[in-house]
């Protein structure tokens, strides 16, 4: 019988730009130990492990096998799932299915990256087709800049609009002790920071980070025994379209639109803006904070900037986005999507401490990556009735 599944514990490292004090397995173990502690479980309780990262950032093949000393996977079922930037969210979705299938009762999900160990833009560039895409592609920023230009041409946004999003997330990060960058910036500082790829300034984009995150999911048979406030998974979904970068509709994130519609329909959510209380958006650069909430159906196309300027997405607003400080404040790539998931779970479970949004009934976490891909999870305080 298919089962409902919930997040019962989360753990993260204190993310930093460079962690030469630990090797990869030790970094992973920090997050795993914290998640076990949070759920008050031991490794003996874990029935399977899913791990994810991007191979070429550390240059380690068969990471599922290499990492067992850190993940606790020795003599346990271990599987690697990886989909690029979406990996962190993808592995959380993987954990959901392993639990919901009834095959495993308690699954440990681990996302990690030591981005300091290679050149991140160079490594991301190898994600793209060696024959067709690699010549001009320059890591994630070049594609994102092309999206922002297309959106600006279509809807008339400005770089001030983008900067406002960056100001928001960087301010939110002050409340999150795990975030890597915790420094408030002004609009003027964002706009005055060096232009990396028009129209993206240095302070519009995410950093590179060493960090790990772990999440424990359990079936409805045990979730409420582990914690009084499990974070129930209401829906998971994704779209990974396109074979080449030039296939996309620049200026719109079609994968987000398709995924959000599917999940909200399943959950019976008709007005996401009112029914969702907090979003942890995988937003690698500021303009995505405008464009992608339109694609998610929070506001109509072209209305994203107005909504951001209204303060609705700030802490204390109608629908706070990225109370954690988001990806702009911290980006250990293979962990990034899972951090969104863990932060959303903490909001539902009431464990978000200084960054807690009051009365969270539904939260959304997302992953972004690949060729304009989206992964998404709908979290809820109540057990879903399906």
């Amino acid at each position, binding site marked *: 019988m298919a089962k409902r599944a919930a997040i019962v514990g989360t753990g993260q490292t204190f993310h930093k730009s460079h962690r030469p004090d630990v090797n990869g397995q030790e970094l992973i173990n920090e997050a795993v130990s914290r998640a076990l502690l949070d759920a008050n479980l031991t490794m003996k309780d874990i029935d399977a492990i899913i791990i994810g990262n991007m191979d070429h950032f550390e240059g380690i093949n068969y990471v599922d096998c290499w990492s067992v000393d850190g993940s606790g996977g020795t003599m346990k079922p271990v599987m690697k799932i990886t989909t690029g930037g979406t990996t962190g969210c993808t592995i959380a979705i993987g954990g959901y299915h392993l639990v919901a299938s009834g095959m495993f009762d308690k699954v440990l999900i681990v996302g990690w990256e030591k981005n300091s160990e290679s050149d991140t833009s160079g490594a991301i*560039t190898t994600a793209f087709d060696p024959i067709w895409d690699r*010549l001009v592609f320059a890591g994630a920023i070049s594609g994102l800049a092309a999206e922002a230009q297309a959106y600006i041409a279509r809807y008339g946004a400005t770089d001030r609009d983008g900067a406002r999003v960056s100001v928001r997330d960087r301010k939110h990060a002050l409340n999150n002790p795990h975030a890597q960058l915790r420094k408030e910036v002004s609009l003027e500082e964002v706009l005055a920071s060096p232009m990396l790829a028009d129209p993206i300034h240095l302070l519009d984009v995410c950093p590179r980070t060493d960090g790990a995150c772990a999440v424990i999911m359990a079936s409805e048979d045990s979730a409420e025994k582990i914690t009084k406030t499990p974070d129930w998974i209401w829906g998971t979904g994704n779209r990974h379209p396109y*074979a080449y*970068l*030039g296939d996309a509709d620049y200026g719109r994130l079609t994968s987000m639109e398709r995924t959000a519609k599917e999940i909200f329909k399943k959950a019976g959510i008709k007005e996401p803006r009112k029914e969702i209380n907090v979003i942890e958006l995988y937003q690698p650069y500021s303009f995505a904070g405008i464009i992608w909430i339109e694609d998610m159906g929070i506001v109509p196309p072209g209305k994203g900037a107005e909504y951001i300027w209204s303060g609705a997405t700030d802490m204390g607003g109608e629908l706070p986005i990225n109370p954690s400080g988001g990806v702009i404040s911290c980006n250990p790539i293979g962990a990034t999507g899972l951090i969104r998931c863990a932060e959303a779970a903490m909001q539902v479970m009431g464990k978000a401490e200084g960054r807690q949004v009051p009365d969270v009934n539904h939260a959304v976490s997302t992953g972004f990556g690949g060729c304009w891909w989206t992964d998404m999870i709908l979290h809820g305080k109540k057990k879903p009735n399906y």
Partner: protein
Amino acid sequence: MAENEHIVIESGEAAQPFNYAVGMYGSRFFKELRENKKIMGVKCPTCGKVYVPPRGVCGPCFQEMKEFVEVGPGGVIGTYTILRFAFIDPETGHQKPVPYGYGFIKLDGADTLFQHYIDLVDEKKVRIGARVEPVWANERKGTIKDIQYFRVVE
């Protein structure tokens, strides 16, 4: 050794060489590029969409495509950016020279965008919708570099 010394081991000159198979569709593309200065796309018999680079499958229709059609060589800028930050080029292992124009070009007759360099001689003219044409390499070898870059034309 100091208590707080953390040793880092470098990977050295290690490299992973690959021989990427271009396949039937890509081979046709590069042959036409090299021999005839023609840019070839492939058309989906179901939805009629013309794809560049050519490939075997129309994703949305899950339909095999066989009909090659010539596109371009001119087109318009679909979207673009100007890369201004330095990073390690995985093709060479060295820093990529910046700035350079990075264009997604809507070639005449194609429905997808074709990526290539855009000349930055007059940066102000590099805009979405601007008309562009390829500047061919003097010696064409059947690679993406047979086109040096695209340049904006009036």
